[in-house]
């Protein structure tokens, strides 16, 4: 597969390490009351869609960027690649 890196252009997927669903960005706060249920869903449950899937890839043999790749799990077609840091900020994550 080839991932079109937003900064570097097309790169072979062998340069990347796969993590999984991009929902991993949306980590619930782990401190406080009743966090266990939210964290259980975050850690263990997946939509696992047959079709469009937003997922995290890490450019380990490259510029060390985490990317959010939108890829179809039936055809492997990639329609969007974004820097995960930008996605995280757009989800309101900061410090």
């Amino acid at each position: 597969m080839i991932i079109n890196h937003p900064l570097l252009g097309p790169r072979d997927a062998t340069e990347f390490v796969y993590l999984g669903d991009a929902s991993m960005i949306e980590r619930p706060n782990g401190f406080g009351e009743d966090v266990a249920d939210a964290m259980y869903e975050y850690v263990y449950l997946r939509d696992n869609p047959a079709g469009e899937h937003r997922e995290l890839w890490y450019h380990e043999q490259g510029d060390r960027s985490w990317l959010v790749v939108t890829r179809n799990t039936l055809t492997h077609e990639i329609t969007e690649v974004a820097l995960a840091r930008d996605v995280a900020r757009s989800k309101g994550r900061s410090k």
Partner: protein
Amino acid sequence: MADITLIAAPVLGGFNHEFSNCTLAERSDIALISVAVPRDGDTALSTKLDTAWTLTMPTPSTTTQANGMRAIPLTADQFLLAFHPDTNRTEVSVQDDLAEVGYTTVQTDAWVILELSGEGATSALERICPLDLAPDAFPTGSAARTVMEHLGAMIVRVDNTRFWLMSARSSAMSFLHAVETSCRWTAS
């Protein structure tokens, strides 16, 4: 222990070999300092690079060069400065120069640098480097990190037929073996 002084040794013993259509040599005369750009600190750092060496920040896939200083992109917010150290410019002096504007780390010892040059360089690289090295796709000054024979590597096109190939120091022997084998197998 005034009677003992530590002498630095190149990891590949200064390897240098001429193949029929290319030459492969270890470069142990380059100092490397990584510079991380503080959050919201791009302007201060680029101003400093400019005043110190008239150097501009590298782009994600292109090196910049001025006054014997080369900036090689590493990550989205980090690059390497590569230079020949001498009495006026040392690892320490460069770190001092940047102390207020960037986070620096000495990287000289983290890497091995192989210089591959000659007409046969690209056909040797064809066997280990997944990147498109055609001159219009990877012109002089380009830099990229990738993987070669299971090793993380950085490739810099220094000029049309001259490349720096950088990889981790601890696996320098394996890296040399990979590049050398490519040279040997593609030699005429």
